[in-house]
């Protein structure tokens, strides 16, 4: 019947319009996505930005702000000492200024990318015959030192770290063919994942090295260049003298690496993923590891993994360090490796508390729903569960945790699928509701909070947990593009649970499977360090979390005097448990004081979020950071030229440092910002199109009738 009507030319026209309209709407989108980034690039020469650095690099400034040319590396020497879960690395790199022309003075920026948990605490640079050394100072004072030195014409640079992920320091006036040696020391925490400890040292050479690429050398500071990066070219082309590198001249960065590993427990095996190594066991249960070859090309990262030897009891190890009359210790509690799947599992009460505020609309609520669905799949018949959703009101599926039956599960899955994001974020009543269910010591009672944590009343939340938690545990899962991870971490700490961050919907299943698997097998709970025998004991974290299968617990300890034996107490299931740890025979290592100091600083910084006034926090952090030579929010590493004074021979050729030196730059990834185009236009167009088509069709029908 439609076919008969379709013979009418008007109708056919309308249908054609409709059919062509849809692909046309899709096409612009495809075109946008297909547009290559290159067409927006800032210049002809392949240079790099600071964020492109994947290993320690010396960058020379070019005329384009934000773009640099890497200096050729002559050699790299790395020494790493691993103690338990901390790694202290000393990296020594030699660079050269490749230009041979006289008067080609370059300004360089030394950039070292750091993993999240790492921080540089020592720096020394040799530039030709100059020595530049870094000292930790209070932040404002550091800035004053830097300004003063700059005014006096001395070479100096300021290294400030807002967040530890990239460390930069700049050096001015590097002469032609001059050699630069940079030595830095940093400390980081080892990653533990799925039963293995992992250490990674970045060595990959950027594929940006293209033999024969000309190096742009600047004659002057690039002040007042054009501000439209996509259309301006370098204005004074005649003043650039690009020395051409001969093909193959760029070296493949030979690296020599040696490691001393003291894991703190018997290991099953030590493996290097990409490089052949020699492992020599030490008498003190450590290992000396070096690369089979003296020097290797830096074409892939160095990755070392080791795993604990099999055991079915939790083990504790301790390392100590003496510093300034105080004892610093790192106490590690490692869970048994045998997955006790045969062991009877305690029945669980699981309450899922999920945020559905407007701020989660879009992919975030999808992440939350996926998390919840994944969790529901793992429940067994001996468990009980409930789902509570909250935005500015609280709604719960059941009034209290119900046994897991097929009907209940089905109901819950439907409930979860029906969740939509709208409204405000009021988490307090939701938590209160979750904590209303009666306590039962024969069951594991776990509350899983899935939200982005965008709330203001943190103190009330922590107070509630402090008073009403009892034997229950609260685990937090952070979702959304900018979750309030401080709040979520603190909530988990108060709830004696853990915080997991889910970045992408695609990561949800894996991350949460691992989390839930872990939650099903707690090994020890209510863990405490007995204070008898200690003087002035201070340990972080102050509230020890439970020990789960597959994840060790680490305590950073400081005291003025220690007992011969420390005692750890807790509960294994319902049975009391204790474990003595001998401190007398503890292995002495360095870096423990730094680890303790960093843990203390992060605890102090957390207190700022909990209402302690900034000045108190600042004083606390300052004390610790200065005492242990650490960079923090309130202290900076100032690198001052400590070269002995020389006659002013070359000063005429040196340019005044007009442009600001490149300091550590805080970057915000653009992809993290929300999409800012509404569907308004497309909906209006589509709507109007349909209305117009309707009019035509109506007319056509009238005409045909």
């Amino acid at each position: 019947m439609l076919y008969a009507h379709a013979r009418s030319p008007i109708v056919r026209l309308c249908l054609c319009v409709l059919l062509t309209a849809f692909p046309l709407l899709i096409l612009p989108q495809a075109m946008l996505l297909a547009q290559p980034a290159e067409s927006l690039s800032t210049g002809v020469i392949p240079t790099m930005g600071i964020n492109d650095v994947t290993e320690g690099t010396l960058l020379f400034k070019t005329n384009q702000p934000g773009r640099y040319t890497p200096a050729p590396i002559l050699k790299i020497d790395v020494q790493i000492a691993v103690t338990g879960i901390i790694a202290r690395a000393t990296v020594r790199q030699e660079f050269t200024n490749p230009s041979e022309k006289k008067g080609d003075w370059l300004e360089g920026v030394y950039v070292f990318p750091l993993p999240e948990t790492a921080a540089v605490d020592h720096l020394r640079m040799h530039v030709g015959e100059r020595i530049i050394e870094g000292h930790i100072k209070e932040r404002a004072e550091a800035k004053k030192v830097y300004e003063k030195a700059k005014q006096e014409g001395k070479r100096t640079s300021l290294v400030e770290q807002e967040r530890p992920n990239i460390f930069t320091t700049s050096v001015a006036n590097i002469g032609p063919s001059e050699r630069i040696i940079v030595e830095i020391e940093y400390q980081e925490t080892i990653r533990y994942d799925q039963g293995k400890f992992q250490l990674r040292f970045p060595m990959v050479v950027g594929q940006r090295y293209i033999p024969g690429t000309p190096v742009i050398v600047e004659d002057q500071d690039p002040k007042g260049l054009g501000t439209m990066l996509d259309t301006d070219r370098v204005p004074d082309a005649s003043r650039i003298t690009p020395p051409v590198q001969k093909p193959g001249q760029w070296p493949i960065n030979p690296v020599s690496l040696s490691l001393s590993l003291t894991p703190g427990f018997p290991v099953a095996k030590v493996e290097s993923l990409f490089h052949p190594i020699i492992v020599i066991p030490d008498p003190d249960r450590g290992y000396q590891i070096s690369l089979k070859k003296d020097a290797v090309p830096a074409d892939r990262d160095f990755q070392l993994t080791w795993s604990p030897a099999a055991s079915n009891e939790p083990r504790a190890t301790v390392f100590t360090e003496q510093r300034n009359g105080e004892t610093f210790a790192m106490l590690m509690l490692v869970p048994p490796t045998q997955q006790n799947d045969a062991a009877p599992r305690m029945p669980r009460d699981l309450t899922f508390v999920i945020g559905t505020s407007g701020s989660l609309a879009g992919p975030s609520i999808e992440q939350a729903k996926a998390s919840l669905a994944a969790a529901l799949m793992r429940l067994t018949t001996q468990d009980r569960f409930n789902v509570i959703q909250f935005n500015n009101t609280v709604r719960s599926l059941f009034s209290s945790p119900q046994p897991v039956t097929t009907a209940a599960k089905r109901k819950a899955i439907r409930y979860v699928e029906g969740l939509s994001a709208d409204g405000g974020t009021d988490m307090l009543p939701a938590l209160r509701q979750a904590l209303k269910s009666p306590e039962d010591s024969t069951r594991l009672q776990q509350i899983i909070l899935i939200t982005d944590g965008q709330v203001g009343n943190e103190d009330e939340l922590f107070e509630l947990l402090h008073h009403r938690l009892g034997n229950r545990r609260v685990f937090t899962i952070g979702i959304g593009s900018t979750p309030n991870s401080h709040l979520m971490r603190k909530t988990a700490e108060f709830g004696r649970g853990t915080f997991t961050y889910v970045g992408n919907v695609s990561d949800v299943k894996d991350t949460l499977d691992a989390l839930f698997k872990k939650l099903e097998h707690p090994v020890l709970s209510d863990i405490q360090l007995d204070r008898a025998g200690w003087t002035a004991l201070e340990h972080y974290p102050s509230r020890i979390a439970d020990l789960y299968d597959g994840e060790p617990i680490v305590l950073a300890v400081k005291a003025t005097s220690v007992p011969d034996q420390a005692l750890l107490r807790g509960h294994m299931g319902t049975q009391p448990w204790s474990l003595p740890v001998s401190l007398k025979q503890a292995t002495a290592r360095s870096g423990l004081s730094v680890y303790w100091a960093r843990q203390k600083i992060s605890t102090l910084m957390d207190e700022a979020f909990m209402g302690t006034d900034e000045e108190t926090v600042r004083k606390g952090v300052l004390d610790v950071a200065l005492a242990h030579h650490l960079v923090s929010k309130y202290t900076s590493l100032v690198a001052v030229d400590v070269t002995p004074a020389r006659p002013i021979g070359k000063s005429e050729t040196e340019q005044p440092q007009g442009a600001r030196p490149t300091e550590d730059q805080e970057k915000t990834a653009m992809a993290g910002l929300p999409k800012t185009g509404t569907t308004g236009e497309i909906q209006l167009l589509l709507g109007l199109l349909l209305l117009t088509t309707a009019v035509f069709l109506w007319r056509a029908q009238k005409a045909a009738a």
Partner: protein
Amino acid sequence: MITLLVVAFVLIGLWQTGNGAWIYLKAQLAQVQLQRAWAGTLAGQQEVKPWLWADTWPIARLAVPSLGIDQIVLEGAYGRTLAFGPGHVESTGPLEGSDSIILTGHRDTHFRFLEKLHVGETILLQARTGVWHRFVVRDRQIVDSRTATISTQEDKRQLILVTCYPFTAIVPGGPLRYMVNAEIVERMAKDKP
């Protein structure tokens, strides 16, 4: 048969047109409510909710005198918030401090004017205290959001406005962004100049 088709088209057409129009209407109406909430904020109230079920609140007033722009900026740069006004990316500093700020908004509603903003023009931002800050546009860039990053630690305080690009794209969701970079010139007295 045709009648059914016509009815269907009319209904869907009205629904889509209505939705589309509502997006623009909402953007305008919200600003009216926000101006009131802003007055309250200036009077000293904290986190004034512009309407009962709002989960955001005004934190600044954005004005571009040369283009006649006067908008209220909301806290948080989430999809929902941006329907009502430009949003302040929380992980960048607050206006009262001295860190750089990133504001983001929809390219077809509140931040449409970015296209006409030239280097050298003035942007004014009023904080909750009532104090006005003057910024001057220094730079405009088109970047790919998949690879670009914004540097927020320069010598002078930066105000960065970001929106999607191109401005006239009908289908939303492309990866390009239009970024306007302005540098602080001065903090001024409480009265608007």
